[in-house]
């Protein structure tokens, strides 16, 4: 048993830390600190900074232009990028489609799409969920029918995160309605500019616009936009699900969040005393800290197994469940610390010099509400429990 990182790993950590200190622009850091929606421009600029260093495709092997990191290096990178208030890398092209094309794509697809993802030529979004197919993704209905050397697509996707910025969408579509659900699904790439694609915004609970509905009406795309084999899309979807798992616990984000909560509790005064000295609030923070400390280790233990076995196992569902719950608790504490000062609608007091929340905290209530999504998407926490019941308990 040895809880230390190797000297090489520590050196790598320092390298990452120095990189962010030197290269992350202040305006990007501030935007992340303030917790509002990030603009497309900021996300693209951030990607370009990482790409220049060769660190953008964090999960990509060297042959495709990635840094060739293993799970531990990725973990260190995640921790350090969080600590530096760097944005989250937009995952759809980089950690979802990229790995799929690397594993299932044709040489031609790899050569064309992968460099464009790294260079920021194409912004991708994920077209999986439908109004009737959420947890039960395999019941999806969006239909693709082959017509010569084209696909004709009809149907609707929903919850498409950042689809308003996207140039392309990768979709799971039904290509054979007459077989078992999982066996009639294909994975197809669609240029969002194709006639018949329509994006409509969905406003979220806190008022932000990050998700969309995407409608397909007689959308024609080339047959060669199929990834992998026809009707084998479910295999790809499942592969992606396991790939989505590294970093799923969001430990880095929670560590930062904990620091934020502690600093905030020192800044807020209640009747002349800092909130940090309120025993009930302090106990809530301590409780979260204990859970997070254990989570750090749980995460590293699973990382270690993944490193040894070459792939994360089903127990990573534990990371998703507990990781989101801890992060949601910390978001709750941030809101709670402010008391009524969390109540103003985001932005409603900015510019009035009467702001009631300390700098960087005016969006705390919005963050809390928005973050409820994390236990719903990416396989809800109930679905994760179902997975664990089957795989770990054998029930």
């Amino acid at each position, binding site marked *: 048993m040895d809880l230390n990182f190797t000297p090489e790993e520590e050196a790598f950590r320092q390298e990452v830390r120095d990189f962010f200190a030197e290269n992350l622009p202040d305006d990007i850091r501030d935007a992340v600190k303030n917790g509002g929606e990030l603009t497309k421009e900021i996300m693209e600029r951030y990607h370009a900074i990482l790409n220049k260093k060769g660190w953008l495709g964090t999960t990509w092997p060297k042959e495709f232009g990635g840094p060739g990191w293993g799970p531990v290096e990725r973990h260190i990178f995640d921790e350090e990028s969080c600590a530096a208030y760097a944005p989250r890398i937009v995952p759809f092209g980089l950690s979802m489609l990229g790995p799929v094309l690397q594993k299932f794509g044709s040489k031609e697809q790899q050569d064309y799409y992968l460099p464009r993802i790294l260079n920021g030529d194409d912004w991708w979004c994920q077209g999986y969920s439908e109004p009737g197919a*959420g947890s039960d993704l395999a019941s999806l209905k969006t239909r693709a029918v082959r017509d010569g050397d084209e696909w004709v697509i009809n149907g609707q996707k929903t919850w498409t995160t950042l689809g308003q910025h996207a140039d392309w969408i990768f979709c799971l579509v039904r290509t054979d309605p007459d077989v078992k659900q999982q066996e009639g699904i294909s994975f197809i790439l669609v240029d969002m500019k194709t006639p018949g694609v329509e994006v409509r915004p969905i406003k*979220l*609970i806190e008022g932000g616009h990050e998700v969309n509905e995407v409608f397909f009406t007689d959308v024609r795309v080339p047959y060669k936009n199929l990834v992998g084999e026809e009707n084998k899309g479910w295999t790809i979807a499942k592969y992606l699900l396991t790939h989505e798992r590294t970093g799923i616990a969001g430990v880095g984000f929670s560590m930062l969040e904990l620091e934020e909560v502690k600093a905030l509790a020192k800044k807020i005064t209640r009747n002349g005393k800092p909130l940090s000295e309120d025993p009930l609030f302090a106990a809530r923070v301590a409780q979260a800290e204990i859970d997070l400390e254990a989570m750090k280790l749980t995460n590293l233990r699973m990382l270690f197994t993944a490193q040894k076995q070459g792939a994360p196992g089903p127990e990573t569902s534990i990371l998703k469940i507990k990781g989101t719950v801890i992060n949601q608790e910390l978001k709750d504490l941030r809101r*709670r610390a402010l008391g009524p000062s969390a109540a103003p609608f985001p932005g409603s007091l900015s510019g009035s010099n009467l702001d009631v929340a300390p700098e960087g905290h005016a969006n705390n209530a919005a963050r809390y509400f928005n973050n409820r999504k994390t236990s719903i998407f990416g396989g809800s926490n109930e679905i994760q429990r179902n997975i664990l019941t089957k795989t770990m308990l054998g029930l």
Partner: protein
Amino acid sequence: MNFDLTDDRQMLQDSLRRYLADKYPVEHRNKVAYAEPFHDDAKWGELTELGALFALAPEDAGGMGGEGFDISVVFEELGRVICPEPVLGALMASRLMTAAGADQEALLSGATKYAVGLGELDAPYDLDGIATVARDGKLSGRKSLVYGGQAADVFLIAAKDGDALAVYEVQASDVSVTGYGLMDGAGAAEVVLEDAPGKLLLADAGAAIEDAVNAGIVALCSEAVGAMDVLHKMTVEYLGQRKQFGRPIGTFQVLQHRAVDMLTEIEQSRSIVIKAAAELGGPDASRYCSMAKNLIGRAGRLVAEEAIQMHGGIAMTWEYPGSHYAKRIIMIDAQLGDTDYHLSRVAAAA
């Protein structure tokens, strides 16, 4: 023992429920709750005509109620439609004016809108922390998150007057009012007083303020019960309708049990609010109001978060009414003392 409403209160409940269901559907609510002036003046007038404000004050003060149960009936109905009208300010102001023996016809008729300024930035909950001062009838300080303040004509302001707490009546035109909308709809204001002229309403007002806060707590807790009840019903209905894996998600036992846990907490909430309402005005009111506010804070978080979770993505949207109920239920915790604040009060008194 009898847990039924009296005939009068039953009538009040029926008429408010009918009116609000008809005139305050959630689409309308969202339209007015999130845009200036963050309520609907016409509806405010109609609500008053229905007697919603008269029910909040006792007969000798010109009202028709004023007991804990009257307050509870009104606010539970407001909670059922997450109504953004500034009734809380009217209630708390009325309590203070009743204590002062002041004429409140303009308040109860809805003609004049009142807001009460107690909390401050560094002392949102605890009256001991009030730093606003009154000297020779002039007030200076800042009241923060004054609910309904964006629409108020008159403010009742708690201020230190020498060693005692006093309440002054201050005209909105004599102070700087910065109104804004809230995360959960409706509005509030930052009220900055700089030597603002005030009319003394209550000297040595500690007990009267405590009573007004207690009344406010009964109101907020009742509002929460109304909102939780509706949100729970919405959730159960959705569990019955939404199909995944070829069956209604309500057939998954894990969701059934959690919906039952919500129900249990709502019943507990209802009970503690009845107790607090019964004790309002009596010697133990503060203790039971603190119990109620603590329990509602805990139950509210469970109900709101579980409702969202069990709906899935749909409850994350602005368009789905349940999301607005969840926001209101959560944000109620930060009004007039949160879960921890009231827990420590109950513990200290034990």
